[in-house]
C-alpha cells in the first residue's frame, strides 16, 4: 500500500491544471440539454481534442493518451477543480469507444474512433424501449436483413443526447423468431438517416436532453454492425458494465459538491435542522469514501483485476450519496429551495442538482436491480 502520488503523477496533475486554467471557458456554458448549450459543449469537446484531452484513457492509437486509471482520476479532479463543462462526448468516451475497441473490426475502429475522439461525431444511446427499461431483454425494435442492409423499425427511448447528436448505437432484434437475450445485434446508424424521427422528451427540469427515436424502415449497411449477428446482448452487457462501472461518475464531482455543501451549511448553520447538519457531515465523509474506494478499485484494475458485480456497489453508493447531499442542500435553502432562478439572477444549482440526483437511483440500472445483482452475484443468494 502506497498512498502517495508519484512525482510523475504530480507533474501530470500540474500539466492538467495549467491547461485547464488556460482553456476552460470563463463564463459557464448554457445547458447541454438545449440547442445553444449543446453547440457550446460540442465546441468545448473540440477544444479538449485540440489539446489531446478528449479521451485521456483511450490508447494513443485511437486519439487518446493511454492514461491509467489513477491518472484518469487526477485528470477528473483537475477537470472539476477548474469547473470545466459537462461532456457532450460522454457516450462515446465511456460506452461506445471501449465497445468498438473490444468488439469492432479494424475497419470499424478506423472509421468510428478517430472522429469520436476529435468530437466530430457526437453519439447518442439507443438502448431502452418503452417496455424495455429495467428489463432490457424485452427489446422489440427489429432489424430485418435485406441483402447487405438491415431495415430497422421500432422505437427507442431515454436516448441521452439524441435530440442533437449525429449518430446512435443500440441493439435491435435481428432474428424475428428470437426471444429475450437471443437474436439481438449491436448496430450503429446516423440519426439523419431517412425514416428516423426524433421526439424530444421534456424532463422534470423542463429541458429536453433525452429523446425518443422512431425508426420507420431505416436502411443501415450490414457493416455498421458491431460483432456477429445475434451477439448484441453480450456486447451490450459489456457496454452496460462499463457504464455502471468505475467511470460513470468520477469522485471529484461529489467531492466538489461536498465542498460547496459545506460552504452552504456555513451560511445557514444557525437555521439548519439537526438532520441537515448530520447530512452535511455525512456528505463530506461519503464523498471522501467514494474517492478512496475508486482509487482502491483503480489500483486493482491497473494490476489486471476485473470489475464485475462490484460496479453495482459503486452505483448505489454514488447515486444515494448524491441524492442525500442535494436533499440536505434543499433543506438548508428552506423557502429559497423552490426558486429556479435566484434573486441575483444565478440559476439555483442546488435545485438543478437535486432534480438531476433523482435520476441517479433510476438510470443505468435502477438501484433495485443493482441490489439484486449484489445479493445474487456477490453474496450468492438464490435467484
Amino acid at each position, binding site marked *: 500500500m502506497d498512498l502517495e502520488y508519484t512525482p510523475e503523477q504530480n507533474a501530470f496533475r500540474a500539466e492538467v491544471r495549467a491547461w485547464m486554467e488556460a482553456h476552460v471557458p470563463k463564463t459557464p456554458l448554457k445547458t447541454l440539454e438545449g440547442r445553444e448549450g449543446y453547440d457550446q459543449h460540442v465546441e468545448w469537446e473540440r477544444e479538449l481534442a485540440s489539446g489531446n484531452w478528449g479521451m485521456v484513457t483511450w490508447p494513443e492509437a485511437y486519439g487518446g493518451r493511454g492514461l491509467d486509471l489513477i491518472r484518469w482520476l487526477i485528470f477528473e479532479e483537475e477537470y472539476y477543480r477548474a469547473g470545466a463543462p459537462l461532456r457532450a462526448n460522454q457516450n462515446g468516451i465511456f460506452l461506445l469507444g471501449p465497445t468498438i475497441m473490444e468488439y469492432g473490426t479494424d475497419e470499424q475502429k478506423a472509421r468510428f474512433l478517430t472522429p469520436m475522439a476529435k468530437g466530430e461525431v457526437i453519439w447518442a444511446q439507443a438502448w*431502452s424501449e418503452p*417496455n424495455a*427499461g*429495467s*428489463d432490457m431483454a*424485452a427489446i422489440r425494435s427489429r432489424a430485418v436483413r435485406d441483402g447487405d442492409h438491415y431495415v430497422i423499425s421500432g422505437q427507442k*427511448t*431515454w436516448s441521452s443526447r439524441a435530440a442533437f447528436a449525429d449518430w446512435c448505437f443500440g441493439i435491435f432484434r435481428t432474428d424475428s423468431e428470437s426471444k429475450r437475450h437471443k437474436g439481438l445485434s449491436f448496430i450503429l446508424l446516423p440519426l439523419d438517416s431517412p425514416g428516423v424521427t426524433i421526439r424530444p*422528451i*421534456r*424532463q*422534470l427540469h*423542463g429541458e429536453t436532453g*433525452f429523446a425518443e427515436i422512431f425508426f420507420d424502415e431505416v436502411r443501415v449497411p450490414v457493416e455498421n454492425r458491431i460483432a456477429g449477428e445475434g451477439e448484441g446482448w453480450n456486447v451490450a452487457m459489456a457496454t452496460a458494465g462499463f457504464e455502471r462501472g468505475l467511470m460513470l461518475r468520477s469522485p471529484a464531482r461529489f467531492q466538489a459538491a461536498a465542498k460547496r455543501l459545506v460552504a452552504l451549511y456555513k451560511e445557514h448553520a444557525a*437555521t*439548519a*435542522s439537526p438532520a*441537515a447538519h448530520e447530512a452535511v457531515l455525512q456528505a463530506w465523509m461519503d464523498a471522501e469514501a467514494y474517492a478512496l474506494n475508486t482509487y482502491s478499485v483503480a489500483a486493482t484494475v491497473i494490476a489486471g483485476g476485473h470489475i464485475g458485480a462490484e460496479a453495482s456497489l459503486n452505483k448505489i453508493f454514488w447515486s444515494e450519496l448524491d*441524492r442525500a447531499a442535494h*436533499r440536505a442542500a*434543499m*433543506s438548508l*435553502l*428552506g*423557502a*429559497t*429551495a*423552490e*426558486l*429556479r*432562478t435566484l*434573486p441575483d439572477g444565478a440559476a439555483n444549482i442546488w*435545485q438543478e442538482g437535486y*432534480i438531476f440526483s*433523482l*435520476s441517479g*437511483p*433510476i*438510470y443505468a440500472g*435502477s*438501484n*433495485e436491480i443493482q*441490489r439484486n445483482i449484489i445479493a445474487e452475484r456477490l453474496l450468492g443468494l438464490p435467484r
Partner: protein
Amino acid sequence: MDFRFTEDQLNLREAIRDYLTGEHTPEVLRRLDVEGGRDAAIWDGLIGMGIGGLLVPEAEGGLGMGLIEAAIVAVELGRANVSEPIADTALVATPLLGSDQRAAIAAGALKVALAHPINPWIADLDSADMVLAGEAALPAPEDPAPVDTVDPLRRLFAPIECAADDRLLDRAALIAAAQLIGGAERMLELATDYAKTREQFGQPIGSFQAIKHHLATVAVKLEFARPVLWRAAYAAQQRAARTPIHISHAKVAATDAAMLAAETAIQVHGAMGYTYEVDLHFWMKRAWALAGAWGDRAWHQRRIEAAVIGGGMAIGPETTFASELNHG
C-alpha cells in the same frame, strides 16, 4: 373524544373531491402549464360550491364552518393540485378581515395575497385585489416583480415589507400542511397505479417486493401524519394554548410525508417519472414549494424543540389533548 369526521364534513369532502376529480383533471394542469395563467372556471366552480364563504359566518351569508372544514378542503386542493388562490384567500385570510371583505370573498369578488416576513416571496400577487400584510390590508401593487419557481403552476413575486402576524402564519402553515398531505396521498396513488400496470420481466412491477415495500413505507408515513394534521386543525379551531406546537408538528409531518412520497413515486415510475409524460411532476414540484412556504421544516422543528426540550411544556400521554385534568 371522537376523532371521526361528522356526516357534514364527510359530505363536504366528497363534494369537493367529486368536483375536482371531474373538472380539475391533469389535462387542466397541462393546459395551464402551456398557456400560463389561471383557470377562471375552477375559481368560479369552487366559489359556486361555497368554498369562498366556508369560514364566513352564516349570518353574513357564508357556510359558517371552521378550520377543520378548511383543512378538509385544503387536503382536496392538494390532492388535485389546484393553483387558484382560493386557499390563501378563503381558507387563510377570511377570518382576519372585516365583514364587507368577507362577503366579497364569499362571492368570489375579492382575491387576497398574503405577506409575512417568514416568506421571502408572495404568491399570486398578480391576480390579487389586496394584500394582507402584518395586520394591515393593503391594495395589491401594480405590476409586481415575478420570481422564477420550479412549480410551473405557482406564481411568486417579490415581497412587501411588513410586520409578522402570528395568526396568519399559523393558519397558513396549517393549510399548507393540509395541501401537502393531499399531495402526498395523490403521489402515492399515482405511483401505486403505475406499479399495477407497468410491466417488466413479464409481470407488473408492483408484484416485486422492493416496489411493494417502498410504497408500503409511504403508506405508513402518511397514515401517521394525517391525525397530526387533524389534531392541529382541531386545536386551531378551539384556540387551544398548544395550537402553534400542534401546527408545527403537522407541518413537519406533512412535509416529511410529501417529500418521501415524491422521492418514492419517482423511483417507482423509473425513467417515466423523470419526464413530463406522466403527471407526477406537478405534485412533486408543488411539494418542494409548499415544503418551504410558511416556515420550512427546520423552522417548525425549532418551534417544537423550544417547547419540548427548551421550554417547560408538559409532555407525555396525559397531555396529548391537553385535557382539563391537566389544565383544570
